[in-house]
């Protein structure tokens, strides 16, 4: 039997206004309305949505009234009859909650009903915290209710709700939960983590799609408003939360367990992997009880061989090395291997260079190592975009400044033509030049053995004839006295074609651009050869 919006409103009004128990049976009738909803089909559902919405809101008001009347807490009953009645009410309330959760978890498409249900459910949690406490005003948090909600959220499965670029969930319910509740309230964060540990322990994760799970987890966790973050501006959701939520250690270990649980999920796509690595060093590691537990994950990611992933893992790894004394065998060798041709063409280049700048700033590393890095980077500039070249040139400059022994790669005094040399010396110089062969081995993976220090940076010298005037001018710093202490890398790291063009276009047309005076024949065929209309 379906009921119209007006009927629902009328019934609800009746229930709210009077305490007459005869009417209470209509509560069950109203709750029963949910079973008429066609949750599977989007079109049919669209028709029912206003009714369902009205139903949800009305029922919330009814139960709120019941909360105030104290009819939902059987332990407060004074007589047996009343207890029976209260228990009946509680049962109806329970079924209402389960209907709400059902709406959240089983709607296979985006709808505002799910959001309404979420809101109403969260309000019910607030009410429960007040009225289900053992005594009036006693601290209480309805963690079981929250657990049910978490389960429903994780269970909801809306296809194509995963962002293709970063692998986060775009499901509005999850996003809403994250933004409006999780990121704002400290008690919800605490109990969310605690209950999630329980859920995982129950083995519920096995039933759900790993990718979806991870997507939702990332969506909820990818922000800065965390429990332990000192800068976060968090509030308490329920009026009287228990003392337990101040247990930071517990929270951290719960969070840690959850993260590891999620990281252990199998078959996750690369995008989620990347997103995780991207946020790891800033939004995850600081909140861990024992961040070293991430060591395996990071080293595995680093060893994986995928350039981008290794690059991203580097940041987290560095964080661990810095703060927790993590030792990584052959770190520099690994780092050296990260300098691949594709490095120059990916966006994370600046991240890599920033970190490498830090790693190579130690004065206790061998010249061979530094020279290998310089030479390899220089070699790669030959086919890289101007933005990459622009970041490499000051990088190399700073390195040479810091490790002056590497200057021999720019200036080998043995090969300077001395204008006052006699014939003998000239002949020697000539033979030296003729006999010279570049010893650098690009394919060598160990930076100590590349012989880069005996090579020279012809690549950077060639860049002085780069087509972009600014790059060409920048490349000239290697042939000028090294007077500058160092270049500020931040000025050079984040250039792109976009910003380069932007800079060009913002120039005003002060001078008339020069025209070509030479006759060139036909544009296609003569000017641009081997191409025709």
């Amino acid at each position, binding site marked *: 039997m379906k009921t119209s919006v007006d009927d629902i409103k009328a019934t609800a009004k009746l229930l709210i206004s009077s305490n007459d128990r005869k009417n209470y049976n209509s509560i069950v009738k109203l709750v029963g309305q949910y079973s008429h909803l066609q949750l599977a089909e989007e079109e049919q559902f669209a028709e029912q949505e206003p009714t369902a919405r009205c139903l949800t809101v009305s029922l919330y008001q009814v139960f709120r009234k019941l909360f105030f009347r104290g009819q939902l807490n059987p332990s407060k009953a004074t007589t047996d009859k009343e207890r029976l009645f209260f228990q009946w009410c509680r049962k109806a309330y329970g079924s209402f909650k389960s209907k709400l959760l059902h709406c959240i978890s089983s709607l296979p498409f985006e709808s505002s009903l799910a959001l309404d249900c979420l809101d109403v459910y969260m309000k019910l949690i607030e009410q429960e915290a007040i009225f289900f406490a053992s005594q009036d005003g006693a601290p209480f948090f309805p963690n079981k209710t929250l657990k049910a909600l978490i389960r429903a959220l994780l269970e909801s499965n809306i296809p194509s709700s995963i962002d293709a670029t970063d692998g986060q969930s775009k499901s509005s319910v999850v996003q809403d939960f994250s933004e409006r509740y999780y990121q704002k309230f400290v008690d919800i964060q605490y109990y969310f983590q605690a209950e999630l540990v329980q859920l995982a322990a129950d083995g519920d994760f096995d039933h759900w799609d790993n990718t979806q799970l991870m997507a939702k987890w990332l969506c909820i966790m990818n922000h800065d408003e965390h429990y332990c973050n000192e800068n976060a501006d968090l509030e308490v959701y329920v009026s009287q939360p228990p003392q337990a939520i101040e247990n930071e250690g517990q929270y951290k270990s719960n969070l840690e367990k959850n993260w590891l649980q999620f990281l252990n999920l199998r078959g996750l796509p690369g995008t989620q992997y990347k997103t995780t690595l991207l946020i790891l060093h800033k939004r995850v590691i600081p909140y861990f009880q024992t961040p070293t537990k991430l060591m395996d994950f990071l080293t595995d990611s680093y060893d994986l061989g995928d350039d981008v992933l290794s690059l991203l893992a580097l940041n987290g790894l560095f964080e661990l090395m810095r703060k927790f004394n993590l030792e990584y065998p052959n770190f520099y060798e690994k780092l050296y291997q990260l300098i691949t041709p594709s490095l120059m063409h990916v966006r994370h280049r600046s991240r890599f260079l920033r970190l490498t700048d830090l790693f190579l700033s130690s004065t206790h590393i061998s010249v061979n190592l530094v020279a290998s890095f310089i030479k390899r980077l220089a070699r790669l500039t030959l086919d890289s975009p101007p933005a990459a070249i622009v970041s490499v040139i000051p990088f190399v400059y700073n390195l040479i400044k810091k490790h002056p022994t590497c200057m021999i790669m720019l*200036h080998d005094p043995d090969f300077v033509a001395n204008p006052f040399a006699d014939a003998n010396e000239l002949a020697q110089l000539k033979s030296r030049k003729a006999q*010279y062969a*570049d010893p650098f081995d690009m394919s060598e993976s160990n930076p100590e053995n590349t012989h880069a220090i005996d090579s020279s940076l012809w690549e950077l010298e060639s860049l002085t004839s780069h087509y*972009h005037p600014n790059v060409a001018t920048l490349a000239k710093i290697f042939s000028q006295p*090294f007077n500058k202490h160092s270049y500020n890398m931040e000025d050079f790291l984040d250039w792109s074609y976009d910003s380069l063009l932007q800079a060009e276009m913002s120039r005003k047309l002060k001078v*008339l651009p020069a025209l070509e005076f030479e006759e060139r024949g036909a544009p296609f*065929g003569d000017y641009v050869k081997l*191409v025709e209309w």
Partner: protein
Amino acid sequence: MAGSQLKNLKNALKEQGFTGQTNVKGSKKVKRKAKEYDRDERTKAIARIREQFNPFDVKMNRDKRNAEAKKAVQPVGKPGISKQIGEEQRKQVYEAKRKSKNRLGGLLDRRFGENFKGLTEEEKMLERFTREKQSQASSRRSLFNLDDDEDAGDDDVYGEKLTHYGKSLSFQDDFQEDDLGLDEETGNKGSSKRIERQLDGEDDELPARKKTKAEVMKEVIAKSKFYKQERQKAQEKLEDEIQDVDDEFEDIMAELNQLPKTKKNDLDKSKELDKEYDTKVRELGLDRRAAPAERTKTEEEIEKENEEKRQKLEQARLDRMRGMFGEEEDQGVEDLGEDFWAGDDSENEEDLNDTDGSELEDVVLPDGDDDKPNGGKSKAVSVIPCPQTEDELKEFLQSYELKEHPNLVKEIIRTFQPRLAMGNKEKLGVFTGVLLRHILALSVSYGHSDLDLFSSVQNSLIAILRSMAQKYNEPLSEACREIISEIQERFKSERSHGLSVADLVFFTLVGYIFSTSDHYHLVVTPCNVLIGELLEQTKLNSFQNIFFCAVLARISLSYQQMGKRLVPELVYFFEKSLVTLLPLTSNEKSSSGLAYIIEDSEDLNAPQKLDHTAITSHNLNLRQAMSQDYVPNDQEKSALLCNILDSLEETISLVWKELSSFQELTLSFKRILAAFSQVYQDFEKPKMILEKIQKFERFHEHFPLSLQNHRPMSIPSHVPKYEENFNPDKKSYDPDRTRNEVNKMKAQLKKERKFTMKEIRKDTRFEARQQIETKKKDYADYHSKMARIFNQISTEEGMEKGKYEREKKLRNSKK
């Protein structure tokens, strides 16, 4: 000296004999005489005493340093006296100035009402205008001058007279105006002359007879009476006439206003011939004066001139290529920093608007089939708009056949030559941009039919655009920059799907029109960046894209024909495209050491067997890039491969061979080419390129750099330097003579300046003092005058009063 100042003075005076007992008996007379005789001596003595007793009148600079050289006469200054002298001099100057005030120099403003504050600006103007008109009217022969004779009026009263060098061109009335005696006076004179003549004539007939003096006198009296009467009559008559005319003036005016045209027509008929003559004269006046024709130059001379011009242009191009903008130096590396990248406009300051006369010259259109559109059409074209948007141009052109478009465009440019009307220049400027966009749009929209016609039309349109670029460089450049932004936006939002043939045509046109070898160029540099972006970021996952980039590579190569600059993106594209096209499996590729080059797609291989026709002619066809779902056949694939190889070869021999990193650049290509020559055993091209690389390598000296071979820098020394033989008198130890002198001069200048300032201040102070003094004097004069007057009045009053009293007394006593 002991005693008080006064005592001393008395003593001194006494010593000199000025005071004390002067009337000593006995020697009285003698002494007096001597004193009178020595008056000069006496004044000198008094001055000496005065000086002695006023120590402040003398100023001495005590020289502490040369205490031993005391004997030398020390200069003594007399500030009081010098001050007085100065004062006197000033006074003289001031007096002189005051005397000449309002008498010498200056301009007298005689403009009406200039110094009269009672008039508003408007009234002033009005008054001036009236005055000017009046003065003009009085100088000119007035329209309605009554004494104007009728004959003179035959040239049009209303029309303008023709003049030549200020003289009238109407030859009939060549008589002088005063011949007729126009004015009253002259009129009278004339008549009196006539009368005289008459009288004389009468006398002539009679035998000459001596007149008595009385007779003569009588005659004279009679004559003068007669003349007087005559004059009076004439005067009366004239006055009457004037009165009449004044009365009827309005009527006459009304009639005159109605009539003029008919009168003019009458005159026209009579003056038909004259008019013809007049026009002739005018034409002759307008004719340009004959000038000697320029000497016809011999062919060699013309050639030489052209050669020189080309050399100059080439030199300018080379300068730009090396990055020298006018006088300004290339930006040093020291300036590199945050602001280096942020669109720094400060460099190259040439003036944009070097507008000179040549601006108005029209565009020299490229000749070719310059025949006008056939008769009927050209009439229809007579009303040509100047399209200001692409749609307008399209609308205008769509009713004509494609092959006529270039001529129509030329017609537009010809019609809107800047010298023909104002605003044409701006219009044509906009039109240049429109034409560019039209060419681009046309290149996308043509079908496969009649390629020859299409390409010839496009080529001639482009030729027109190129010649337009000479004059309308700025609007064209602006349009180009807009298009660059558009292409970039499209590529950003739609990646390779946003690109089209028009973009290729655009890049080609930029290179075709602008000088691509410049170190920095406002249009070409952004184009280069954009081409780089397209080459680097276009995913080579379809033949379409490879094809597009291959053409782009060709264009980029054409850009670097002169500048020979390294384009790293080109290296990237060659590597990637060649490996993609290499018909090997990925395993085979990695075994030949090419694994590090990442392909975007693995199934875009060139055919296993190359097409032979493609090897010989591998032109890329822009049409191929047009359709998105285009699947190339084997021949086209082979052509694409050959074309890319060809580009690679050209790049190697054009740009790379001159770079110090030639070996590093060719490293991967050696592998790729080796792989190609293995796959295609009978394909010569890869082997040829390999040989070429090896040849260049043999000539290429590869040895370590020595970039830091700078001149040794001197280290500044901070040890204090002691001067031997220090002399405090010597003001400067500067060994540089000129600098020394300059410093000297500067010090002198400073001193002089200070002195002059002081003098000027003194002058002004003096002047102020004088002014106050004169003012005070004026006031005093005034007051004394007034007092005198009052005195006088009161004296008179008192006198009168006394009189009155006396009179009263008298009368009383009489009673």
